[in-house]
């Protein structure tokens, strides 16, 4: 079952959980599976049109995905990491 790694800034919807294991064949399915369990998460990653926010980066097994490559397949032991720009002076 793929693991989605949640950035600290996004842990309010997940109740503080840093990792969520979900069923899903690809990146988008896994993100939506997190949303199903923790409502409020998905809008932090995708916009209203379902596109990846510009300030969010996605990594699979520490390799950065091209923006918008949400149909990238995930294997059961893959780790999908969500990174978000979370500082700024």
């Amino acid at each position: 079952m793929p693991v989605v790694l949640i950035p600290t800034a996004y842990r309010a919807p997940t109740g503080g959980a840093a990792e969520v294991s979900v069923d899903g064949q690809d990146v988008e399915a896994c993100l939506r599976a997190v949303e199903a369990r923790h409502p409020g998460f998905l809008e932090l990653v995708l916009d209203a049109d379902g596109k990846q926010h510009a300030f969010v980066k996605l990594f699979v097994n520490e390799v950065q995905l091209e923006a918008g490559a949400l149909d990238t397949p995930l294997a059961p032991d893959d780790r999908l990491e969500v990174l978000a720009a979370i500082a700024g002076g």
Partner: protein
Amino acid sequence: MAGPEGDRLIRVDMTTQTATTEPYPDEWKLLGGRGLSAKILLKECDPTCDPLGPDNVLVMAPGVMSGTAAPTSGRISIGGKSPLTGGIKEANAGGNPGQDLMKLGFRAVIVTGQPADPEKRYGLEVDGEGVRVVEADEYKGMWNYALCSKLLADRPKTASVISIGPAGELKLSGASVACTDQDKERRPARHAARGGLGAVMGSKGLKWVCVDPGKAKLRGAAEAKPFATTNKDYTKAYREGPQMFATGTSSVVPVANMLNTFPYKNRTEGQSPDAENLAGAKIVESFEERGGGMHNCMTGCIVQCSNIVHDKDGNYKTSALEFETLTLLGANCAVDNWDDVADMDRLCDELGLDTIETGAALAILMDSGGMEWGDAEAMKGLLKEIADGTELGRAIGNGAVATGKLRKHARVPHARGQAIPAWDPRPLKATGVTYAAGPMGADHTAGLIVNPGMQPDEFARASQDCQLVNAVCDSSGFCQFLQPNLDDIRNYYGLLYGEEISREQIADLGWECLEDEWKFNELAGWKPEDDVLSDCLVNEGIGPDNALKFDVDAETIAASKVRFPPREELFAMKASG
């Protein structure tokens, strides 16, 4: 000067208008920036002094790595007793003066005293020939851009400037200290903004410092080859990484808005309906049509988070238009577009004002009925009025608390007299602990924790860890947006000096900085019972059902000031501001 051997301190006595140099104490070799400023102030400044009187001490201290080839390492700290908080303050900036001072081997400029004639203006020349105080009455009252243009017109292209605008000369508590950036125009666009240190510089009659390193070389490292290899590897790793700030700090507007930390109308709400028009994406879109773009504010920066914003005719307007500015001068005042905020950012840079404090003050004016919400033209008019020294202009220039007093308005979101930055302590409670208990007052760069899901029993430790890491970072000269961790910094220090720096040593340096600052504040009269945020942040909620309030108990806040044993995570934690 190849450094670090032979380093010196510059002492400037503004009572006699004389400048001298002296050897830099060897026992301070691991101190720089914020940590060095704190050490000097605790030793040499009476904490009970009038911040705008002759006994305050103004420190300009580049970080330990400034002037070396380490990437994004040239930041400078400005320190002194703050007229805003009444405690110790450090504000730091990019640009080139920090590394230029260090190339000449100057670890700090220590400015004391005050001229007998408050109408006189002086400059400080620093170059390979030495240091000199010179008369500068011809620059009196000048705005920062014109000042730097005039000052640098006949100087070598290698020179850089530290300066104040009219706000500093008027000794307004929201006044900043400007540093010129590395572009060929050498614009005064980088500001050590928080805490009113521009007013301290103004109180000493010091209008500018001009630093020309000439042909001075970069500072060398004791372990030259490993140092060069580390620079190469670090840069490569950064460039192959996510580069989260590649389009500037303004890119965080949408996520901040979603997290209820993009305050609207004097923080009565946590989200702005105009977030889309204030977001960095709109600024980036403008580059194609208007020009401008991303650049590095200081030589050797690999982050390049600074934007250059042009007007509709393609002419330079301002740099950099940051997240905090878009929040405080934008959303918090109900201004609905980034172009107007860019105009105000330029005005603040010209006058030498902190955009956070000024935006907060303007929002209080609006909240109290003194100006229509979102009236950008009226805001610009009032900003220009600040230079004229009118009563309202002075109040705005003196910041949020002063404006609240003038307007007899109770909703003044602040900690220790300093306005709350964009990052709101209600959804981000551990950050609120930093504001309440940290030595810097409400300053997100002292310890920002963006983790709205954090449990209450983690607040104290999270705040303390972040404060410690940021104190080390702000002492090193590395930019917080490079996001170095303690292991990165101790590795660099070790290569610079040719000796192993242990984890214990680097953590102790951060803690010692905090302790020095807390000690100064205690001697200045700060009391633990004042480690609080203003009532409006405690009693007025934002977010869903207005449920987000700053409800952290006093014991938790106090616990953040008692050292926790260092843990493994501390050394991997990235600086964050």
